[in-house]
């Protein structure tokens, strides 16, 4: 089976009914999508499949043979955050961060298709994502800000990384 993951073609050896979540995390070491409920109810595993947000824990590898998968690792990195990532940082929309990967992918897709500019739009589109920490208000704020182009990435960049050190070489595929 073949997948393109964050722009890189990958050959896979996992059996065809392995979940995409297990393939990403265990075979490929792409660990941003999280195993939350492991039954499709929480959204922590959401990734983009050909640009569409889907539950990786419910997707068998055989169903995505040849598809393009995007995870947080493909959205941006500390030196170059995507607008939605910068907005999440600016608005303090992540606490423990466990749900964040799923929210970022679903939010990114929502904004790409022109949505996310109102609270109603966000809570409908992201209704499959559970957060136990934030109470959702800051997440909605962040998505609205990113959708409305109200992001100040240059302020966010300054927060990234330890003070006074050179950029650390990250393990490819590990979250920022």
């Amino acid at each position, binding site marked *: 089976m073949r997948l393109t993951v964050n722009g890189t073609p990958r050959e896979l050896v996992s059996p065809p009914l392995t979940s995409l979540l297990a393939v990403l995390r265990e075979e490929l070491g792409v660990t941003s999508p999280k195993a939350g409920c*492991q039954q499709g109810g929480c959204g922590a595993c959401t990734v983009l499949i050909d640009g569409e947000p889907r539950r990786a824990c419910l997707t068998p590898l055989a169903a995505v043979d040849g598809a393009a998968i995007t995870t947080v690792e493909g959205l941006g990195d500390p030196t170059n955050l995507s607008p939605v990532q910068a907005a999440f940082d600016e608005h303090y929309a992540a606490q423990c961060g466990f749900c964040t990967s799923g929210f970022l992918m679903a939010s990114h897709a929502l904004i790409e298709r022109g949505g996310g500019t109102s609270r109603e739009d966000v809570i409908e589109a992201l209704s499959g994502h559970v957060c136990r920490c934030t109470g959702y208000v800051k997440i909605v704020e962040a998505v609205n800000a990113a959708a409305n182009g109200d992001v100040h990435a240059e302020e966010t960049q300054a927060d990234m990384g330890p003070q006074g050190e050179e950029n650390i070489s990250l393990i490819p595929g590990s979250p920022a």
Partner: protein
Amino acid sequence: MALASTEAPEVVAATSIDDAVSAFGDGEGVTVLAGGTILMVDLVHGRLAPERVLMLDKAQMAGVRTEGGRITIGAMTRVAELEDSVEPLATVARGVADPEIRAQATVGGNLCATPGAESPRGDLQAAFIALGAQVRSVGPGGERTEPVEDLLAAGPEGRLVLDVSFEPPQAGASAEVRRPHAHAYTILSVCGAIGVAGTRLAASGAGPRSVRLTSVEEALASGADAAAAAARALDDVSPADDALASAWYREQTLPVLVTRVLNDLG
């Protein structure tokens, strides 16, 4: 926790309806993988160890078409595609899970959903029954077309659903009781529609699968008012206690939901 990967099953990816029908055969030893939102949970958790899995996502079994006043919905049509359909189907479809699940789950999978251990499944069933929908399936004995409620009563196990079809109703309505949750599970829902054959009603969540409320329909046909007809609904159902609600609660709320639907239908 290690994430289970599944080994051993033979996976067949059908590339056309004929291919799917032929690969399904009489259904013996075949596990159908449609959207995967139900099956994958069982597979990942090791509750199922199928020998042979028939994947349908490339079998060209999706799509909604209208011909000669009849709407036909392919079994692999995603639930999300029904959000703009006729009532009561549209409202029920919009209430299934969330947008990501709706984009993956299929009409056929929802129709054939095995009753959940913790909660009822298959919300679309009651909407299709109320619409008087016919379901076309293959399996032992070959192809057959029958009312949805008959397929559900006989058990869709061993059948491969191809499509569902119905005539748009003159009016459609639904009422439900839901349990707030990450996914607002439907404890109980009633769907109704007025078609050429009169008023049809069905209930979801008052038994392992959705059922037609024939006692209510008969009461209406013999002139009972909405409340009196609604009380007859209890004759048609056998609700059980489950994780969402008790049988008692469902028995209390069923006539209320039926009354609401009848009032909305006018």
